[in-house]
Every structure is written in structure tokens, then in C-alpha cells.
């Protein structure tokens, strides 16, 4: 008698809380497959890709997805600086050197005499600089494992020197992507 009963109460509450809710995502295998299948069926693969994935998050500086339902084409603009978060161990693979393919284009025809110079940095380290061509391009970055070693996620920061505002557009547009591919070096996926 007279003993504090708080531990017992807390234990009962914890048991109640634990027992009341589901904790396992029973759809973790079926939902992504379903989403991919429907995307293929409905010509929405690019939209699916541009929403990000469990290993790649469009974090900051990105506008919403734009798409052309007739062709299934989709793209996503950023302003002067856009950040994409990358999981350092995608699909729970061991830590290794990674490769990032960036697909897109710049609004070179609206930039005028200025340059569209681009810079790509991962975890604060500039990995590449680019004078983009006046057509769609693919930029491949090799990300050494030491840049990824100390956290679960890292930032990829894309910076463009100048943005443009095409006629009828209210946003400042710097770079438009049609997708990213984040994979271990040498992987065929």
C-alpha cells in the first residue's frame, strides 16, 4: 500500500496504445507495383517519376508537375536553385559509389545574352559545372561514397546562373527536369 502506481498505469496505457493500432504497412509491396502498372496503363510514367520515390524526394525550389496528357510527357521546373534529397543507401543496398543521371533542359531561348550556366553540388560539394546545350540533355554525376557515408539522406543542389520568364509566364524558370536516375555505379537498373 502507498506505493506509487504510476509505472503500472503507464505500462497499461502503453500496452493499450500498442495493441490498438496496426503497425505493419501491409501494402508496402503491392501499392508501388499497382501505381507503376496504372502509370504505364494511363501514360503517366513520367508523372509518377517526377513525384519522387522512396529514395529521391523533390524537396525545395521545385514547381508542380506539368504534363501533356496526349503524349504522356511530363516535366517539372525549378527556379534559380532546386534541392533534391537522395537516400544514401537506396533500396537498402550497402553504401557505395553512386551515379546520378539528370534529364532536362534550360529555357535558353528566353535567357537572352545571359548564360544558363549550371552547377551541381551534393552534400555541399560541387561535383559538376555545365554550360547546358540548347536542347534536352543528360548530365551524369558520380557521387563518391565518402560524401554519402555520414547520413541517411543528402542534398543535391542544382543552381542555374540565370532564370527566364517566358511571355505569359509568372514564374522565374531555371531548369526543367524530366527525371532523375539514382543508382549504384555500374548498375543496369
Amino acid at each position: 500500500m502507498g506505493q506509487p502506481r504510476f509505472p503500472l498505469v503507464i505500462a497499461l496505457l502503453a500496452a493499450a496504445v500498442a495493441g490498438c493500432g496496426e503497425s505493419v504497412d501491409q501494402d508496402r509491396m503491392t501499392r508501388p507495383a499497382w501505381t507503376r502498372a496504372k502509370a504505364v496503363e494511363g501514360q503517366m510514367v513520367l508523372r509518377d517519376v517526377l513525384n519522387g520515390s522512396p529514395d529521391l524526394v523533390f524537396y525545395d525550389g521545385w514547381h508542380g508537375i506539368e504534363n501533356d496528357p496526349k503524349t504522356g510527357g511530363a516535366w517539372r521546373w525549378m527556379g534559380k536553385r532546386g534541392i533534391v534529397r537522395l537516400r544514401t543507401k537506396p533500396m537498402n543496398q550497402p553504401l557505395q559509389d553512386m551515379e546520378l543521371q539528370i534529364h532536362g533542359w534550360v529555357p535558353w531561348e528566353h535567357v537572352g545574352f545571359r548564360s544558363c550556366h549550371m552547377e551541381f553540388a551534393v552534400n555541399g560539394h560541387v561535383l559538376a559545372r555545365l554550360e547546358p546545350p540548347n536542347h534536352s540533355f543528360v548530365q551524369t554525376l558520380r557521387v563518391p561514397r565518402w560524401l554519402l557515408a555520414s547520413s541517411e539522406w543528402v542534398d543535391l543542389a542544382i543552381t542555374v546562373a540565370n532564370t527566364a520568364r517566358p511571355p505569359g509566364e509568372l514564374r522565374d524558370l531555371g531548369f526543367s527536369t524530366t527525371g532523375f536516375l539514382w543508382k549504384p555505379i555500374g548498375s543496369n537498373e
Partner: protein
Amino acid sequence: MTAAGAATLERLRARRTQRDGKVVAAVLCAALAALYGVPFLGWLPKDELVRTSVWGLALLCAFAGWGSLVARACWPTQRVSLPLSAVWGASAMVCAGGVLASVDMISRPLLLLSVAGGHLVLGWTWSRPVARVILVHELRARFRAMRAHPPLAAIVTFVAIAIAVLYLGGASDVSSNPFDDDISYYPFAKQLLERGTLLDPFSFRRMSTLGGQALFHAMLLARIGVEHLNVFDRGVCLLLVVGLLATHRIRGAKVPTLVRIVSVLFFVCLPNTSINTASFVSGVVFFLALVQTLDAMPDTLSTDVRAAVRRTLPLALVSAATCTLRQNYQVTVALVVLLSYGFALSRVRRPFRARLVEPIVALVLTALLVAPWLVLLYRSNLTFLFPVVRGTFRAGLRMQAEGMTVGKVARFCVKIWFSTEPISTIPLLAFVGLSLREASSRRVLVSAWVAGLVSVVFLAWGFSLSNVVDLARYDHGFLAAASFSTWHVTATGVRWRESSSLRALLLAGVALFGLLACLEGNAARTLTMFDGRLRDLDEMMRRTVPPQREPPIAGAYRRIQEAVPAGARLLVMVDQPFYLDFGRNEVWNLDMPGASSPPPSLPCFSGPEPLAAYFAGLGIRYVAYVESEHSTFQYRRSVWLDHAYDPEEIWRIYAPYFVDVIDNLAALGASRKHLHDEAGMVVLDLERAP
């Protein structure tokens, strides 16, 4: 004049007051009887408008009646304003309703009786000799004040007309949100009325609310049509806020008239940014009442349990009722009460343990009063504290955005804080509120603001899938209440005819600037709101025939339901389930397919047969659904398929489940017997082949 003459004059005055008091009380009681009786008449001129607005007022009087009883029982020596006691009464009705709903005992006769009971109590209160004299004195004082200050009287009249327009406009507003009201909130009220309880294990919105707002809707629904439920938040609650502001007392003293007029005017001009019938203005009502109740409590903490029960019962009632309105209010209520008691405790000297009596009693009472609603939620969705306890919520779903970092949550908080709608100057008013030196040891205002700030953080963290515009509706209740209280306390602190401290003047100036800047920023939307209310009112006034009792689509719903044996459990996924008879069948509503389902959880992405087997396991033999191409709003497959790839993460998460369940039900429609097809709706017998 001689002493005898003066005494005679006094006697004559007293007799006149008594006589006038009887007349006033008789008139008020007759008005009460009329408010209750008129909505029962078979036919009324301008039926929809009159019935709705009169029943709304009848409900208010019932609240006031029960509230006066609470005030008399708990705070017999303190003067409690009628609007504050009305909120106490509304809270008492919610708490009693929770007990009844948890044992399936809510019914139309019971709700009507409770309203009648409130009227009887109010009538009795007004008829007491002392009350009659007070009423006469109050009326005379008002009349004298009006005559003494004609410009003020003109302003008050103007504001009163604006309030009447808003109330009647709210009663005439028959708009509904097809994604929220039609699918969930209207069915909740109907279920309470026709089934006596609120059990909906497949409803996501059911697990997101305890049901207090639904109970108020059910009280209205006892006499008016479902399309007029807007009258609660946009009419009844509007009057309650106006009342609370107009009669506010700080530490027993009335807030200066001009200050009260400014706050009422400001409130009346605030655009209503709600998008459905869920709690919006009602949040302001109950949080204002919570703050005013706390502020009216004595500084010294009671050390006697019995006295503490009497003192804290009104606070506990209001706290519990507020918790039932919206899930996110629970955190704020807990914080306001705990913080204010924390401040009070920090000022007391030993013995400390004895001083804990009142806070503990307040918390225990609140917990006891809200418990029936928690039990009911547990019965329905296996959770008493969603989303902390997930209950029937699907494990694969979440309320938090993917890739949320501490920095992003912080930025989201700042965004919410600086995008508050419709009071855009909340940060400024918060600054004033937190800078004030409160007289009360409970520091209610600081508690309210700190609780509001912390709640915003919880909201940003807990529901990061949402956006600032939507979350502004979630935090409006407590932030608006804190804003109004701040203005009252600040402006009351300024001694207008004497020299005030620079600090007091500065703070009052900043608060006034905050209100004016907000008014200016909202001008266009305020105009739109008044225009809308007048348009709705005008439309109701032009109607010349009795209201339609049943629109054609309701007949289709009736026939769909008649195809199912009475008493059988019926699962529905239709656009307007509120047309169903919840008393005839136990109706379970798939409002957001996949989001909530009883164990072992709705099978998704695995085809129609596992779904049929799951339903059979739950004793569901009959399923009614609307075919995707016939759905008016919620269940259109093409829309949800598009949402599955939407830039907004919330839709990407929920959309696949919608599409999958729509597809699976359509597949079951091809393999099971159709009991009835009408208006694009199908009712299936899962145990029979076609």
C-alpha cells in the same frame, strides 16, 4: 421631501418595478414558448427561413437554460453572463449527449425534450422575483444609455442589423460541401438521430472527430431539414460569439462599451473561410468561453475537493465539449488548462500538495466528461486518441509528409503562423498578448497564446501532408479566441480619461492596428460574405410554396435501401448517404475507401474476391455503391486515377485506394446479384450470383 414621502416614493418605484418585471418575464416566457412551438407547426410563411432561424434561436435558449442551472449550482455567488452560461449549457448538453450516444440512446424525442427542458429552466430562471427585478433594471439601463448616447445607439443598431443579416443568411445558406458534408457530416447527424449512436468503422472522418459538432447538428435536425445545418456554425455560433464579446467581464468588471463594440464589429466583418459544416466558428465560441471561464475563476486555488468540484465543473464542461468538436482542439485545451494552472501553482506558497486539489479535480472532471465520447470512438474505430492511437486507420497511410525534416517542419510552422486566415495579423496580436501584464495569477491570456503556438507546431508536425490554407481552418478557433481576448484585455488596461502608461497605450495601439489592418485586408472578402448572405436570404424570401420534403434522388436512395432486408448491415459507397434511413439498417460508410477499416483491414490491390471474403467476415452481405461514371463528386475513378500522380502528396497517398476499391466493387458488381439498380447506384447481395 420628507422621509415618509421618500419612503412612499421608493415603495411605489419598487411596486412599479415588480409589475414591470412580471410583464417582462411574461413576455420573455411567451417568446420562449413561441420559439419552441413555432417549428412544430405544419405550415409557416417563408417556411424554410422561419423554421430554421426560429429553431436555431430555440436551441440557443435551451443552451442558456441548462447553462443557467450549471451557473446556479456551481457559481451561485458570481455573476455569469447569459452567453457564457449558454456555452456552459451547450457543453453540458454535449457531455450528456456523449453518455447517451455511447449507450445508443440518442433519439429525436429525447433531443426535443432536452431543448424543452432548457426552455423550462430558462423560463423558471426569468420568472424568479429577483431575476425579474434585475431584468427590468437591465432593460432600463440599456434604454437610458441609448438615449444618452445617440451616436453609440446608432452604431449598435447598425451592428445589430449586420448580425441579423448574417444569422438569417446563415439560416438560408443551403450550400454543402459534397466531399465532406454530403459524404460524412450529414450522415453523422442522421445516424445520431436515427440510430442513437455514432458507429462508422469504415469512415475516416469519424475517427477524426469525437462527435460534438455532429450532436449539435442532430439537435437541429430534430426540427429542420438537413440542408439547413449551416445555421449552427454560421448562425447560432455567430450569435454566441457576439454575445460572449458583448458581455465580456474581466476580473468581474465589464470591458468598456466602445472596446466591446469594436470587437463585435471586427468579428462581424471577419469573412467566414470555412468550407464545410465542421467546427469553425464553434471553435471560437468554445475557446472564448474557455478563456472567459478560466479568467472568471478566483486567483486562489481551492483546497477542498467539494468546493473544487463546484468551481471547476463549468471549466471541465467547456473543456470536454471543446475536445469533441475537432480532434486537434484536444491538445490546445489540455495546454491552456495545464498552463494556466501551472501559472497559478507557481505563485502559491506551501503547502503545495493541498493546492494541487483544484487542478487535479479539474483534469479528472474533464477526463470523465469527455470519456463517453472517447468510449464511443473506441467502439467505432478502436481508438480513443487518433492519430496517436491509430485504431482502424490503415498502416500504409499516414498524415505526415515523406521526407519531412526538422527544418521543413519549422518552415511549415512559420508559414502557418504567418498565413493565418481570416485573421492575418495573428502574429502581431500574439506579440501584444504575450507582452501584457495580466492581473490574474492564472495568466489566462499567456496560457492561451502559448497553447496556440504549441498547437500550431503539433499541427504542422502531425498533419504535414496538409497545406497552410486548410490548416488555417484547424487553428482558427483558438487563435481567434486569443486575439479577441487580447484586444479586450489590452484596451481595458488603458485608462481612457486618466494618464495611462506608455506601455499600455503602445500595446493597445498595436492591437488596434492589428484589427484595422486585418479588416482592411479582408474588405473584399467581407463584402463577398455579406453579399452571399443577403443573396441566400433574398432567395429564401422569394420562395412562395412549402419546402420540398424529399428531392427525387432521395427516392432512389430509399428504393436502394428497401432492396435490403430491414436490420441487415449495409456497407455504402455513395454520394449522398444521408438520404438513407439509419434506423432501418446499420449503415457503414466507406467515405475514404481504405483509410479506415476494422481488422484484419480492408484488402487492397489484391482483387475483388479477397474484398468480398473480408466483408463476409465482418457480417456484411449487402453493399451499395455508385458506379464511377455516375458519381457526382467523390467516387469518379478518372479523377482519383489522376490524383494518384498528383503533385500533392496527400492525394498520391490516398488515391490508389480509391481507385482500387472502385475497381473491385465494379468487379463484384459483375459477379454478384444486383438487388436493385437506380440512378447509377447498385446494391449487391454478396452471397448470391447473378
